[in-house]
């Protein structure tokens, strides 16, 4: 299988703090990979580097063979990379539907003059954006909440909305940053099903940051574990589960 995303010796430092050091791993096309590690290990920093929120200090990042080191965030989106955020970044005052439409319009353009006159392609395009967004909201089970302000949704549903919004960009690589944070066991299991289903239906490659170990172990094909900004283990979930380095990172040294 070809590598969809490949990191080669990536470094990132903020002043004197090395958030990511010499990180190398790859995510294969069509894979559902997990990225785990204790708090502050640098997982979200990896996402921020890949999506161009931060610039890398050293190393190479490749997406489908092309270097993405210097790309800006909106250029990364054009390549087909979408992500969600650990601490939700929804447009809280806008309606649920509008949140998705804001992203869905990426693939539906019309000119400025059609926008100020509401003539030409405006009507048809707006309808297409709306229909597509409603379709995605139905997928994640939010269709009946479409008119509600996004900020008033319960936490778990806001996370689903973020997934719907990211999906509307029609990505081929989806980066999910702790989609199950703050959810109870029941919500986590329905989220599991949702992620597995969208992975199949949209033919996505997914890289998932998660702290719910049972979730990672159940749905991920392969797990990458990092600590203090560096890779400590990589492999199928079963190997990672018993890996001495991983246990050490999570539970501390055995006496």
């Amino acid at each position, binding site marked *: 299988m070809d590598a969809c995303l490949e990191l080669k010796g990536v470094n990132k430092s903020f002043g004197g703090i090395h958030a990511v050091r010499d990180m190398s791993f790859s995510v294969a096309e069509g894979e559902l990979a997990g990225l785990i590690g204790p708090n502050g290990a640098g997982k979200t920093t990896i996402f921020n580097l890949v999506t161009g929120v931060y610039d890398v200090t050293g190393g190479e990042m490749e997406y489908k063979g092309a270097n993405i080191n210097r790309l800006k965030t*909106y250029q990364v*989106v054009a390549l087909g990379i979408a992500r969600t955020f650990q601490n939700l970044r*929804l*447009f809280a005052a*806008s309606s649920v539907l*509008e949140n998705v439409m804001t992203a869905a*319009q990426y693939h539906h353009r019309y000119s400025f003059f059609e*926008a100020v*006159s*509401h003539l030409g392609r405006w009507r048809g395009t707006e309808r297409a954006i709306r229909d597509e967004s409603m379709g995605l909201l139905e997928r994640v089970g939010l269709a009946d909440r479409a008119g509600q302000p996004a900020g008033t949704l319960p936490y778990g549903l806001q996370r689903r909305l973020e997934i719907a919004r990211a999906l509307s960009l029609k990505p081929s690589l989806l980066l999910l940053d702790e989609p199950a944070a703050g959810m109870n066991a029941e919500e986590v299991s329905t989220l599991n099903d949702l992620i597995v289903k969208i992975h199949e239906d949209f033919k996505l490659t997914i890289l998932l940051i998660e702290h719910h170990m049972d979730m990672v172990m159940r749905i991920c094909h392969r797990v990458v574990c990092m600590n203090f900004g560096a890779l400590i283990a990589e492999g199928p979930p079963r190997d990672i589960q018993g890996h001495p380095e991983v246990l050490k990172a999570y539970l501390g040294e055995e006496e």
Partner: protein
Amino acid sequence: MGDYTIGIVTLLAINCIAAMGVSLFTGFTGIFTLGHAGYMAIGAYTSTILIIKLGVPWMPAIIAGGLAAMFFAYLIGLPTLKLVGDYYTIASLGLGEAIRLVIENWESVTRGARGYPGIPHYTTAPVAVGFMAVLAVGMFFLINSNYGRAFKACRDDYVAASLLGFNTSRHRVFSLAISGFYCGVSGSLLAGFMSFIQPVMFDMAKSTELVSIVVFGGLGSMSGCLMGTLILTLVTEMFRPISQYRMLIYGLVLVLVMVLRPEGLMGANELGWDSLKRALSRAKALTRDTAARFGLAGVLIGIPVSYCFQPSSVRAISLAEYLSCIPSLMSGAVKFGAPLHKSVAPNAALAVVIACAICASFAWALGGIIKLVKKIDDSRAAGRGM
């Protein structure tokens, strides 16, 4: 309609156009500006020079004024809006004044501080209202399109917006350019309305007036900004008889709205069935409030009270005539430019409004005290019951 009313309507339309421009940039794109009067000045001087020196007809001159301001806004926006933050706001502080000073000192072209007289009076009420209607429709359509959603996304969360594929700095510059166009057109119309322009008309006070209108109406509400223009322009006109002191009332109205409704008149909502229904239900809830009931009674008491203690300059014969003074102010009984402090109507209207306001606030406070006493009583009774 009298000349005075027509004058007010024209001025209102001109102000609305500029306010819409500022509302797009500050309300929908989320960047404060304190220099938009500068773009109005560019529009006004461009169209004036085109008309007087080059003999261009007024219609294309107005458009050219808008485009010149738009181009200038684009140039300013490129370096200052690249970064996220208050850079543009700080720059705009100096920018508005800089434009004014350049115009003031570039005498060979702009005639400097003496101003530019003899501009043909092309801005009649239909022209101004027509321009406003077309530009308002365009603006409402724009914010209800993918551009509007993009601007709002950049305002609410620029990181999320850029990860949804928006080039946020380009959108900010684009928003500023459109907003510059609106202000430029507004300035050109103002030149044709006044027949005389001078740099002082576009100073810092004008810029802050535009921003305060937008904040007053509600950031992120285009209909709120139109209502804000209407109310603030009318308040200043209604109290014209007390000349300089009317700015006190202007300030009072602004402070009152900011205290009672910090999100502005409309918040981020547009005028429509939903917001009307919400306002109605809130008004219904208010009628059940003791303090509000007293306040309403105070307004009604204020009318006879002001009649009994009317100022000596008002010689109204009956209460009915007295009350009819308020509409007569608007309907042209008072001529635009006439020595207003001598005329009956504005003084009577002023007396009614002030008396009503004083009575209402006293009654409101009284109602509030009664409510408080009742509450204390109730809690005591509840304490005994237990």
